């Protein structure tokens, strides 16, 4: 790599694949015939793969590759059988490595992690017994695409039949451990995945399965994670707080013996059938090398060094990083960071947007409205996938007899490029105006065949698919005759529906290329700045009279960065930016419109303002709950985190005078009424404790906790705190600390876990880790048509894969309105929201229509039953005509209205009643 921000030159070496990607249609014949077998690294060595292989079943693109380290042809110039079997001639043994040079403006590193290899730790017995597996290995065992087809069995059993009765999980293998490895950090995700695996294993198992998780602290700090863990506990998953010191494969192969000290301090022996080592995440040597060649600074865990206010920036300008490479994290956080890195990477080079775009030329669409149906049926063999079970020529012959069918043919691989070209040719030649493809799932292949229709000058909605692979040949492989009959039924149904298909059209609506950001805290300001820096005007709305939100009341991040100073800088940047218009003391009064065309009315102290905007980002934050226990509000020595930080900021002499300071964790969190973890408090308390100890090394500092959740790199300050002599006491929800006034301070009594004796401590200051509480977002939720979960947090479109989107298009989410989170995560999510918003803003128009509902005004009697059932508020009443109309931009084509309408005045285009009745009739007849 050479060059600087805005102008990098990157040289890449593309290793040979020995497969022509354009020709390979992933039929699998080559792998069937390949004689060379090796352990499959994707299945953690639990299964085998061939020398010619697809790395894993969901690989995109689904194309084969040859492993040149073991292929007989490439290593010894023998065999070559794949070349002979390949029906499409995709094998190319002469393939060579290719050098490429790219000229780019920004670089994003998303190189992920490797799972810790526990074979070096003898006491864990990995490698000594096949039933001791890593968590990755166990993940593969549970997976339907795994080595045992998703059947839970003992890896040691050759027949894969014997099911385990007891499984143990060992947490923190390769994490929080500087003795047996050098990974001092917490891997952050293992607690949650262990709980998930335990729950799933129990679901997979036919007999009752005993699952035990051996842990130090359960770190289920993510959204809804605690609820999931409590559910697992209730369903009988055992949680044992203990670090197992040895795992001994028993000699008689009667399972695996584990020796550990239970929470009471007694030594226990217990046998398990499978032991899962919850291995941590670490950065591979290759990644470290690459970072070094790029001069990127790493921390001592080999993660990219970032700061809380720039969570995706590396030490080299123009190079960004995301995912586990910047620190251990789970899927939603990685997805957020990925979008965030995309935003950061485009901020500097946004002027280049749209400069390298190429426009696709598509042939003019033929008008088929007045033509009689001429249906073409293309039946796919899919190699042996379909043809091996179903008598395809018979199905083709049958298709020819169906009414409306003027052409039918058989293809070896309908999805291959040459067949596609031929199909387009046939459509043109035979003047087909409806196309039925009997092949696989429309979910994966409909876009491809629609493209074929477009290329042939047909409307893409004139396509109908019959899934004779997934729904037929795969599930009825043992009954070829009946499968063939079913294929005929499916084809007949598709043909009768296709007869009634009509062209559907999409129209373009202009996009207002500006954004509304609700909330002027760190998240809102970050999102606004990111959008403005990329050239999009932003209206920033804040309910309070000043920007900054909760961050104004905070002191330092756990990495000792000065929060008020940074916030001040950020406020300046917002105020100075010409593209940002800030409305202080303003609330949203009314909202109209839809993605690309919102119209919002704000009530500001002076007047009412209406704003047109294309997208909206909600960053309304959260508040610190006021505790109602531990003498809070009744005694001056008792305070919350924010109040404590206020004193730190003001350098309150009370803090320096205090000799004994205590922190109580989980005040209001993780309880029946609020069963979630507030996520930031463990780190915050420990950081405050360290700060106190630094100012006054003689002070006694106590922390009362349930589980210490200093996830990821935060673990290091937990260690630092212990090294400094800060005392930690664990308590249970059933035996909470009792706080009574004692002079100017308070007295705390608690039952010590290990000693089984009451402990009494007098302290001068008691700091409560009070719960973070969601704001009342009811009216906002109503205006933006979004939902909040039972704890009040705004509900994202998908908890793992779409963590900043809402189900409503054009509205995005960031910061603590989503869930409690520290500053770095809020900023990452805010940038991610900006990035997601730009996917809409960067376009000048959006297309509307296609598969949406349509109203037949003649039939509508204006009863408005449909309005109530529409989940997207896409239907309005036209009072004048006494009929309803549908906003195609809001309609998602769910069809609820069509089902609700008593007179079939509403129909879902592409799935209208006529078409569905035709399919049903055709299914029932013959």
């Amino acid at each position: 790599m050479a060059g600087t921000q805005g102008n990098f030159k990157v040289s890449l070496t593309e290793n040979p694949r020995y497969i022509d990607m354009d020709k390979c249609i992933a039929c699998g014949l080559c792998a069937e015939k390949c004689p060379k077998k090796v352990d499959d690294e994707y299945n953690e060595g639990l299964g085998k793969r061939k020398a010619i292989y697809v790395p894993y079943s969901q690989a995109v693109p689904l194309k084969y590759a040859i492993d040149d380290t073991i292929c007989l042809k490439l290593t010894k110039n023998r065999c070559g059988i794949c070349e002979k079997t390949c029906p499409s001639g995709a094998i190319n043994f002469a393939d060579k490595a290719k050098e490429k040079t790219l000229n780019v403006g920004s670089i994003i590193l998303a190189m992920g992690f490797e799972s810790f290899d526990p074979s070096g730790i003898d006491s864990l017995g990995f490698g000594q017994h096949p039933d001791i597996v890593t968590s990755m290995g166990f993940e593969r065992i549970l997976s339907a695409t795994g080595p045992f087809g998703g059947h839970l069995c003992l890896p040691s059993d050759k027949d894969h039949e014997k099911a385990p009765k007891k499984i143990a999980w060992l947490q923190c293998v390769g994490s929080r451990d500087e003795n047996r490895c050098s990974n001092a950090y917490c891997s952050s995700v293992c607690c949650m995945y262990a709980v998930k695996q335990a729950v799933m294993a129990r679901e997979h198992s036919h007999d009752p399965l005993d699952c035990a998780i051996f842990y130090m602290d359960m770190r289920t700090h993510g959204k809804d994670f605690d609820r999931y863990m409590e559910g697992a506990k209730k369903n009988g998953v055992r949680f044992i707080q203990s670090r197992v010191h040895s795992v001994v494969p028993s000699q008689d192969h009667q399972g695996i013996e584990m020796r550990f000290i239970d929470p009471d301090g007694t030594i226990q022996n217990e046998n398990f059938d499978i032991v899962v080592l919850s291995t941590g995440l670490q950065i591979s040597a290759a990644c470290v090398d690459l970072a070094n060649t790029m001069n990127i600074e790493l921390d001592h865990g080999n993660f990219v060094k970032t700061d809380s206010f720039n969570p995706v920036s590396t030490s080299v300008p123009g190079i960004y990083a995301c995912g586990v490479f910047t620190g251990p994290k789970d899927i939603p956080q990685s997805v957020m960071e990925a979008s965030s890195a995309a935003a950061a990477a485009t901020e500097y080079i946004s002027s280049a947007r749209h400069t390298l775009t190429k426009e696709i030329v598509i042939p003019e669409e033929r008008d088929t409205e007045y033509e009689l149906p001429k249906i073409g049926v293309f039946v796919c063999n899919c190699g042996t996938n379909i043809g091996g079970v179903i008598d395809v020529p018979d199905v083709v012959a049958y298709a020819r007899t169906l009414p409306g069918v003027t052409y039918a043919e058989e293809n070896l691989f309908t999805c291959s490029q040459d067949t596609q070209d031929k199909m387009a040719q046939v459509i043109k030649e035979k003047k087909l105006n409806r196309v039925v493809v009997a092949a696989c799932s429309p979910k994966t292949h409909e876009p491809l065949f629609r493209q074929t229709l477009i290329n042939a000058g047909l409307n893409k909605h004139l396509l109908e698919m019959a899934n004779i692979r997934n729904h037929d040949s795969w599930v009825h492989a043992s009954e070829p005759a009946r499968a063939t009959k079913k294929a005929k039924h499916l084809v007949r149904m598709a043909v009768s529906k296709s007869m009634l298909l009509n062209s559907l059209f999409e129209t373009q609506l202009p996009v207002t290329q500006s954004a509304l950001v609700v909330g002027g805290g760190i998240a809102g300001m970050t999102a606004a700045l990111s959008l403005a820096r990329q050239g999009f005007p932003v209206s920033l709305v804040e309910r309070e009279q000043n920007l900054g939100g909760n961050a104004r009341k905070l002191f330092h991040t756990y990495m000792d960065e000065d929060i008020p100073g940074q916030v001040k800088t950020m406020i300046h940047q917002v105020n100075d930016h010409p593209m940002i218009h800030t409305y202080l003391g303003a609330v949203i009064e009314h909202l109209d419109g839809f993605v690309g065309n919102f119209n919002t009315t704000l009530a500001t102290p002076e007047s009412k303002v209406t704003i047109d905007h294309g997208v909206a980002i909600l960053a309304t934050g959260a508040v610190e709950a006021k505790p109602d226990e531990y003498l809070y509000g009744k005694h001056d020595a008792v305070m919350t985190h924010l109040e404590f930080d206020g004193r730190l900021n003001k350098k309150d002499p009370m803090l320096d005078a205090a000799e004994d300071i205590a922190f109580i964790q989980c005040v209001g969190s993780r309880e029946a009424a609020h069963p979630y973890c507030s996520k930031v408090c463990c780190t915050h308390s420990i950081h405050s404790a360290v700060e106190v100890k630094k100012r006054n090394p003689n002070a006694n500092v106590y922390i009362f906790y349930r589980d210490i959740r200093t996830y990821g790199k935060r673990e290091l300050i937990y260690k630092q705190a212990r090294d400094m002599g800060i005392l930690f006491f664990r308590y249970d929800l059933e035996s909470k600390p009792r706080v009574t006034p004692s002079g100017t301070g308070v007295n705390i009594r608690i039952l010590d876990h290990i000693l089984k004796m009451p402990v009494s401590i007098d302290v001068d200051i008691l700091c409560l880790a009070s719960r973070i509480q969601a704001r009342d977002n009811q009216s906002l939720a109503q205006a933006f048509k979004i939902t909040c979960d039972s704890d009040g947090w705004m509900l994202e479109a998908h908890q793992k894969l779409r963590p900043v989107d809402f189900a409503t298009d054009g509205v995005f989410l960031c910061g603590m309105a989503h869930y409690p989170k520290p500053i770095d995560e809020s900023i990452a999510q805010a940038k991610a929201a900006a990035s997601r918003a730009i996917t809409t803003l960067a376009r000048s128009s959006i297309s509307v229509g296609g598969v949406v509902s349509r109203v037949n005004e003649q039939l509508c009697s204006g009863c408005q039953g449909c309005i109530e059932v529409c989940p997207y508020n896409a239907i309005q009443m036209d009072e004048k005509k006494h009929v309803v109309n549908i906003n195609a931009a809001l309609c998602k084509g769910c069809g609820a209205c069509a089902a609700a309408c008593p007179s079939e005045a509403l129909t879902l285009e592409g799935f209208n009643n006529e078409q569905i009745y035709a399919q049903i009739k055709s299914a029932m007849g013959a």
Partner: protein
Amino acid sequence: MDMVKAAKELLLQDRVDIFLGYHKLDGHQIPHGFTKARVADLDQLEISLNRYPLEKIACDLAQKDPTLKIGILARDCSQRALNLLYTWDQLNPENIETLTVNCCPSSLSTHGDCSYLKPKTTGEYKKAHGIDYNDSPKDFMAEHDSQDRLSRWMYEFQKCIKCYGCRNVCPVCFCKECSLEHPNLVEPGVLPAEVPIFHLIRATHMAGRCIDCGLCEDACPAHIPLRMLYREVNDAVSDIFGYVPGDHIEKSPFSIIGKTVELTPAPMDV
């Protein structure tokens, strides 16, 4: 008569443009729209033994002129029908005035031909093979087993001559196009009407709508006990959702998604 006075007042004070009641013509008691121009006609106003769907007529008028103010002579069933039509936005309550005639459970049985007041007579053959008009759905369920219930209903349904009278007379059937005429749902040109789909479709569409006036049963030339069937429909809706159509102006459970799921799918019992 008070009713005459009240109706005259409505017209003379311009509170209504037309008053729907009954009068006698050629020896028949039939509906009539009284107007201010011929207010003296109201002296002939009758309450009528025969019930006609006056609400449906009001809908016809409102469709022609949505601003028309209509007065109606309303029995209890009319009140329910009107509430339902308000709910479904077919009539505007602000444009409707009613003069009420209480008949349903009262002793004023001279005022109507309702089967609530004068139970219908069921023939012996019908009792043996079909369904007694006056049976309550609950008793019917209790007295007959599943097979018997099916055969009795099939006996009744197979008599259907598909006159669509039940729908045509129904005061709450307002759809412009009816599913019963949909060639994909009900095969056209076949008699008896597709059994039992024709009747099940209508029964399903009556869910949350039927206001139990019994006009359908009266209009049925095949003597199918429709009122009893739709009474079961109403019982089911009221048991499952606690909704009684026409009781209040509130939307039917079938037209509201609702915020929370209160039902659980019935388990499959083998």
